[in-house]
């Protein structure tokens, strides 16, 4: 059971209040029609699936309902960083840095 600090509510809350929302920093292509089927398929289906630090989105579903980014170690489950949507990752040491 994780404890996640919501950057908007500004306190650590229990995992029950949150929902996982997939890998972070996957931009929707500006012009999907310009992409090949393969490129579009990669946007749709391919994810980093990192072992170790992983940038992912969570939503504070039962709280303020805001989405935000979490840097979480998928082995230890330690949460290394929490930052708002739109903010660039603080470093790109992970498999899915921006």
């Amino acid at each position, binding site marked *: *059971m*994780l*404890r996640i600090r919501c950057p908007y509510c500004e306190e650590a809350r*229990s995992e029950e209040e949150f*929902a996982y*929302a997939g890998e972070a920093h996957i*931009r*929707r292509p500006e012009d*999907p*029609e310009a*992409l090949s*089927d393969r490129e*579009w*398929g990669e*946007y*749709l289906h391919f994810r980093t699936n990192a072992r170790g630090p992983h940038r992912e*989105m969570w*939503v504070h*579903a039962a709280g303020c*309902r*805001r*989405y935000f980014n979490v840097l979480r170690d998928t082995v*230890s*489950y*330690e949460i290394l960083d929490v930052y708002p*949507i*739109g903010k660039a990752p603080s470093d790109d040491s992970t498999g899915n840095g921006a």
Partner: protein
Amino acid sequence: MGTPRRLPSGGRIDRDRPIAFSFNRREMRGFSGDTLASALLAHGVATVARSFKYGRPRGIVGHGVEEPNAIVDLGVGAAMTPNVRATEIELFAGLEARTSRAPWQGAVGPLARYLPAGFYYKMFLHARGFRTWERFLRATAGLGGVPEGPDPDTYDHLNHHCDVLVVGAGPAGLAAALEACRAGARVVLADEQAEFGGSLLAETGPVDGEHASSWVARTVAELESHPDAVLLARSTVSGLYDHNFVTVVERRPDAAGAPDVAGAPDVAGARERLHRVRAGQVVLATGAIERPLVFANNDLPGVMLASSVFTYLHRYAVVPGERMVLCTTNDSAYRTAIDWVGAGREVAAIVDARPEPSGAAMQAATRAGIEVIHGHAVIEARGRKRVREAVVAPLHGEDDRLTGPPRRIGCDLIACSGGWTPTLHLAAQTGVKPRWSDEAIAFLPVPAGDAVTWAGSAGGARSLPACLQTGAAAGAMAASRTGHGEGRVSAEPPETDEPPETPSRALFLVPHQRPPSRAPKQFVDLQLDVTAADIELAAREGYESVEHVKRYTALGFGTEQGKLGNVNGVAILARALGQDIAATGTTMFRPSYTPVTFGAVAGRDVGGFFDPERRTPMHGWHEEQGAEWEDVGRWKRPRYYPKAGEGMQDAVNRECLAARDGVAILDASTLGKIDIQGADAHVFLDRIYTTGFRRLGVGRCRYGLMLHEDGTIFDDGVTARIAGHRYLMHTTTGNAEAVFDWLELWRQTEWPDLDVYCTSVTDHWATAALVGPKSREVLGRVCDDIDLSRDAFRFMDVREGHVAGVPARVFRISFSGELSFEVNVPAHRGREVWDALIEAGAEFDITPYGTEAMHVLRAEKGFIIVGQDTDGSMTPADMGMDWAVRRNKPFGFLGERSLSLPDHLREDRLQFVGLASGDAVLPEGAPLVEVPDGAPPIPNQGFVSSAYHSARLSRPIALGLVRGGRTRLGEILHCALADGRNLPVTIVDPVFYDPDGKAQDV
């Protein structure tokens, strides 16, 4: 029955409070303060159970959580709890307990030699007819009985947040909790026993100059004086999860302080509470469990842990025998023998495996007149139903082999100690495997981050002063890590008079004259009857991983979870593999530490609380009308309203015809509703929906499909433009929350630059759908500020006004194909408006209808229900809904790109069609095939998604998905029924009724 083994004085029992109880239907007596186990031992009960596999007699071995044999079903009838350790059951008046039995117990005894380790794997690896065998095996599996009915007791959950959680209230845990409290931290202290104190409750020496029990009492009193300390006795910490989330199962006492366990008299509140603790720091002061020695027939009743004998003697004033042989590898067990003599009993000998024991313990034993046989070990116990003699033989000083002939010593109790095993289950649950220490002769915990620490014998401390000191230090440190105090202890650790220890000998399997495969059974895991020979066999057969050996032999698989047998098993395996213990390693420990009742897991989330019921504002009215219900998501929706004597089909037919011919009313409050406003609201909707929203006029509605990015249909519904920059979106009932999250996902993460806000108003509005040719007249009776005429209030218009005097929004939209007005009013006024509509409709025989009729009406029109006629793989084209897709919008829409993927353009995709089926209503979900009776595999052509009897058409109708279906109209397929019949089915257009839409255009 008398209690021959109870001492006339001493112990922490209350002799003024005798307690009558029954065990295996025999009436017995004990005292308040007894456990079931201590009371049984006081009666001289030797055999409490038969072993799981071999049916051998078994007695009480331990005094706490480690007990493998004395497992009972507690209580009777529905309140019975199976598989409880007798060592942990506080005695109470009227207690009824029975030995938990395996169904085939004893039957296997004579066959046992044919059931080696891995029997099942070998037997069934290539066996035919496993299904037949399985039935027999299932019937014989498991241990303990099943309660006769639903549990009459309640269980509850309680959440806690603390700075420091201390697990275990022995000397280390008490010292840790005390320091953390003094530093100002919020502390939770949990201990599985009824009283705090752990080993101190049987301690005889002084602590801090006073009797150990008064030091405990003083410490507990100070802890109780801290308002932010939560003290949980009878509370087992069962799991340590990520981020220091900890589950604690508390068995609750009743108001009188008597234990509230299964079968006990009535108590207020929950029988057990599952505490869900979120702790900043966890201090594991879980203690250590004495390790038994593995020798031949070591399972005979009368073979016990030395520390357990000590505990029964001092805490319960019970002597579980008369003449003891103590078999040890270390100093700690000596005091059991010395105090045994002090209790007026006889010690035949202390058999010490060490070649030349010396030191304070040895000298004290000699002073007490006890013979110490050094360099020897008990290699075998003898007796029929309990120990009658110990076979003792000399042991080589370093190798584990015998150096001389055995001799026999008469005794009825063999107390043994192979050293101590720190209780690391919780520490290991963090995922970090303990490391072997040759010096400690034990696995010791390994740090995993700095949020979990340990203290006392759990961390390898071997003396009381060390436990007190490491406990205090750990408590102060944990508090400081949560911002309380400087991490220094507040006082010197209390003084004790315990002498220093001399080194122990590492001994696990005691050698016998014969090898394990030929010797009498040498048990490693008493609960599941795993022997040293079984482990050696597994090694011989090529198993090298301790995890594999565990699974092959079932070592540690019982409820006991390796508390006694794990280290011995690992050591025997290491030796068989010719490697050291460190390289062999230990098995992984996972939650739960001890079995947790289903009741504790469920808490109050049972019965009506299992899943919340969402109710509309008109719920009471539906109830009054005797509606039958359908669960839609969490909502309760009326399915149909049967009149006297009506079956479901009769009622649904009547409701459908009322909607088509007169007027009917549906509670549509459950539809998801989302207010969307902002200067860019139309841009946002344009991107979310397949349909275009830029040109939608104020007061107009539009139907839209919502797609996932992969092009599949996610939701559908009507969205209305309420004002210039304001829209109201309708979603399906079941998808309301998912759609809201979807909108927020895109709004917040991809398009934060759009000026748009979404607010859920599902609960704000009560919605009544007035349906049928008479609906305009009915509404007109209660609404005078909206022009309801055909041209002023067109199909797909929305208007604001008052209905029955309540501010209302009325939509002229239709899910039935009839003239229809959906009246929305604030939910707290929903019931009064509903009542007014019913009253206004009385002269038209207004008919309430439910979800079943709603489904029939929409199916007659060929309208889809997302999630019923779609399954997450259908595109708009598949559903024949390209008319709802607007291409070439400025931004496009979510999922648009996927619509041109080659797979979505295949002509043999499943396509939405109608199905005509003679006079039988098809089963929904039934597969469709071309040839009814060809040789398998028969290619699947699709399936039935919706099927009903249509009252209007007087015949069944069905909708379904068929490969390339839209080009196959008129073709006949076959629908395979579960009873083996095949019905011919004709592919038809999905619109069965009023294809031109005349009915709603009036």
